[in-house]
């Protein structure tokens, strides 16, 4: 299970809406399974159906997390027009181990859907996403 404070959940959706119709992406940090930090990242592909992070930004975020004694808990990206599921390409390119992969779908713009997944041995499993209120 991945636990996420509402402000971070809302910021992620806001980024997805702000970047629409392009895919947006970012990194979530925290401790254990509780997210406490969000780092919106540049989608260097600037594409409607692809994303790629800038390694320089990635290194910067990894070091920032380390300095706060936080871990990278998840990578997120948006699907502007398709459901909240990992595509075959998302799965093929998910190399970072032991993190969650979060998708923000704007397929229904009035009701964004956010789902989290874990990957083991190239097999995808859905993961409970608990939003922390207050």
């Amino acid at each position, binding site marked *: 299970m991945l636990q996420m404070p509402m402000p971070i959940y809302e910021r992620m959706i806001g980024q997805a809406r702000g970047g629409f119709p392009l*895919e947006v*992406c970012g990194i979530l940090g925290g401790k254990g399974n509780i997210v406490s930090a969000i780092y919106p990242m540049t989608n260097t*592909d600037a*594409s409607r*159906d*692809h*994303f*790629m*992070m800038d*390694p*320089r930004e*990635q*290194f910067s975020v*990894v*070091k920032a997390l*380390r300095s706060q004694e936080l871990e990278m808990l998840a*990578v997120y*990206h*948006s*699907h*502007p027009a*398709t459901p909240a599921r*990992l*595509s*075959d*390409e*998302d799965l093929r*390119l*998910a*190399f*970072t*181990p032991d993190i969650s992969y979060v*998708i923000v779908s704007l397929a229904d713009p009035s009701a964004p859907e956010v789902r989290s997944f874990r990957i083991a041995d190239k097999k995808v499993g859905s993961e409970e996403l608990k939003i922390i209120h207050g």
Partner: protein
Amino acid sequence: MNLTVNGKKAAIADKESLSISGLLDELNVADPLYVTVELNGDIMERINFDSTLVRDGDEIEFLYFMGGGRG
């Protein structure tokens, strides 16, 4: 050889020479073709992974490509 790898001290068995590719192998890094490496603060070109040697005291960061598509 004493290195700092992803912020942690790492003792690597002394060798006559150790390239970045060799280090990734020593560290059993899976999917090294999709790894980006920073050596002492400089991002390395993949083409130089075999020819660039690491030295005692070096700081190495590596992370995986992050991307996806056709969502």
